[in-house]
């Protein structure tokens, strides 16, 4: 095929993924800029919190917005990641970096186990199974495994990294580690989404019937999606535990699974920017609303309903559509 001169001159449209990644990186630079200039402990904590939750939401969206698997049980991977890192660091005295790897492994393996148990069901039935299994994990940790989980009191004193005599117990320093991992996860997920596996995930969401007919093993794809999504979720759980220096079975609660779904939908699933915007919006609004009323969760609910009606593609959909033409 040769380039023909009479080809209609279509307006140059940047690929959505490209605009998405540029915006996301700009947001990371903005976070870094704020952390660098403001140098306030509270702001650094808030930024870290948003980025940790954003990593969770991006991980969640790998299953949901990319591969089309609706999960109601991601708190299990998140919480077990937090506990995995906690046990590795507190019981075995392993360094922070190893704790993160253990967390990702815990989250990923749990995701794979859930996918294996649910390998015969799809759609909403699988979603309900994820909820059920996550609740099972939560209850077992809270009751039977009280020695390991710390019961309702949880486990306090979860360490932060120690490296070259930098005091990472200061939020202003710790935020850079979170930012580094945040950027790493964004870049990793961006590559994954463009890779053959990522393309297959998108196919799984858009048309599983056709994908299977093309010769792809859907069961194996679901396993991979749940494994990777669980691993990223586990990593974020460990970061949250380290940020709060505290882990409790609350991290395994179904409310967290609901929150991450709401954040992702509000921000816009299927993009990198969406989960981050959703998390930032959710966290900031929570701070603001909680100052006025105890019923902030109800107000958030109303905002969520209105948001999904008027912005079906979320906040990111509004932003990206406007900027796509270059």
């Amino acid at each position, binding site marked *: *095929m040769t380039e023909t001169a009479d*080809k209609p001159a*279509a307006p140059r449209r940047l690929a959505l993924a490209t605009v998405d990644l540029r915006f996301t990186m700009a947001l990371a630079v903005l976070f870094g800029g704020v952390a660098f200039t403001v140098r306030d402990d509270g702001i650094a904590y808030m930024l870290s919190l948003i980025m940790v939750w954003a990593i969770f939401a991006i991980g969640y969206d790998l299953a949901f917005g990319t591969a089309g698997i609706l999960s109601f049980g991601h708190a299990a991977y998140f919480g077990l990641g937090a506990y995995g890192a906690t046990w590795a660091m507190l019981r075995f005295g392993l360094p922070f970096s190893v704790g993160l790897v253990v967390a990702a492994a815990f989250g990923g393996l749990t995701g794979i186990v859930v996918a294996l148990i649910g390998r015969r069901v799809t759609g909403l039935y699988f979603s309900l199974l994820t909820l059920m299994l996550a609740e099972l994990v939560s209850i077992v940790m809270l009751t039977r495994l009280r020695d390991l989980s710390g019961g309702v009191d949880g486990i306090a004193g979860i360490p932060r990294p120690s490296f070259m005599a930098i005091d990472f117990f200061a939020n202003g320093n710790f935020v850079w580690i979170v930012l580094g991992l945040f950027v790493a996860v964004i870049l990793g997920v961006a*590559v*994954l989404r*463009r*890779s*053959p*596996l*990522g*393309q*297959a995930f*998108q*196919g799984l969401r*858009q*048309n599983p*019937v*056709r*994908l*299977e*007919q*093309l*010769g*792809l*093993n*859907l069961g*194996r*794809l679901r396993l*991979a999606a749940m494994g*990777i999504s669980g691993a990223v979720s586990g990593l974020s759980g460990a970061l949250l535990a380290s940020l709060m220096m505290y882990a409790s079975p609350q991290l395994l609660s179904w409310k967290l699974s609901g929150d991450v779904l709401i954040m992702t939908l509000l921000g816009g699933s299927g993009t990198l920017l969406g989960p981050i915007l959703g998390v930032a919006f959710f966290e900031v609004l929570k701070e603001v609303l909680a100052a006025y009323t105890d019923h902030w969760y109800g107000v958030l609910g109303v905002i969520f309903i209105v948001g999904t009606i008027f912005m079906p593609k979320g906040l990111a959909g509004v932003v990206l559509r406007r900027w796509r033409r270059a």
Partner: protein
Amino acid sequence: MSGSIRTSGAAFGSAPDATSDAAASAIGCHGISVRFGDFTALSNVSLDLQTGTTLALIGPNGAGKTTLLNALSGRLALAGGRVTLRGRDITAEPIHRRARLGLGRSFQIINIFPEMTVLENLRLAAQPMAFELQPFWRSVRAWPQLEDRAREVAALVGLDDALDLPAAVLSHGRQRAVELGLALMSDPPVLLLDEPLAGVGQSEIQGTTALIERVRKGRTVLLVEHNMDVVMQVSDEVVVMMAGEILTRGTPDAVRCDERVRRAYLGGTEMREVTHA
């Protein structure tokens, strides 16, 4: 995880089966039955397609044509019987394994990836043959063979001017072309086409028929189609189905004149008139 790619020639080429004994039968079913509850959709159907031939499957609505295609491609559980592909028993193989063994299929209802561009659609369809496990560490563009193959097939089905358009915005006829392109990406030696002309406008029928003519060369094709002109034009043989059973099989001309077939279609009306989709 193997990153090796086996594209050019070997994987995409429709080399005939080594087992010369099976050269006769490309795809076949032997006494298969399919039931939905009390309803018997297929009852003891046996059918064999010789390698390189095109066989059209016709019959009134509800005769079991699509059910037969679903049984062959693995979408339905059989109540009995066997399915063979190029001399190999595939009765127990899942859909994706059958596809990898050389069974391609297009659907009556358009089954494409609506949010992807035409190029992305076709490129994704090239992946199963290229990788055993899908790589995740590099952009899909790192394997230019995939895109080359996509462009090749896009040219074949007449979509080379629409590569960068999202599939969802194409006309129905062009979405049909994407559907067919997806089925052709792996260059399957055996192809099941389920009403490739369904919903295709009058102006596009000739082009699509010519496309089917091109596609069927060097392949074994099982075609379900209502448009009798097209059936007569492209098929070597015609099988008439009726109420889950095979009524008759023969050359297009012989079937057209068969009294039982005429009766099956609206009590003897000219078949030509029953060309609704």
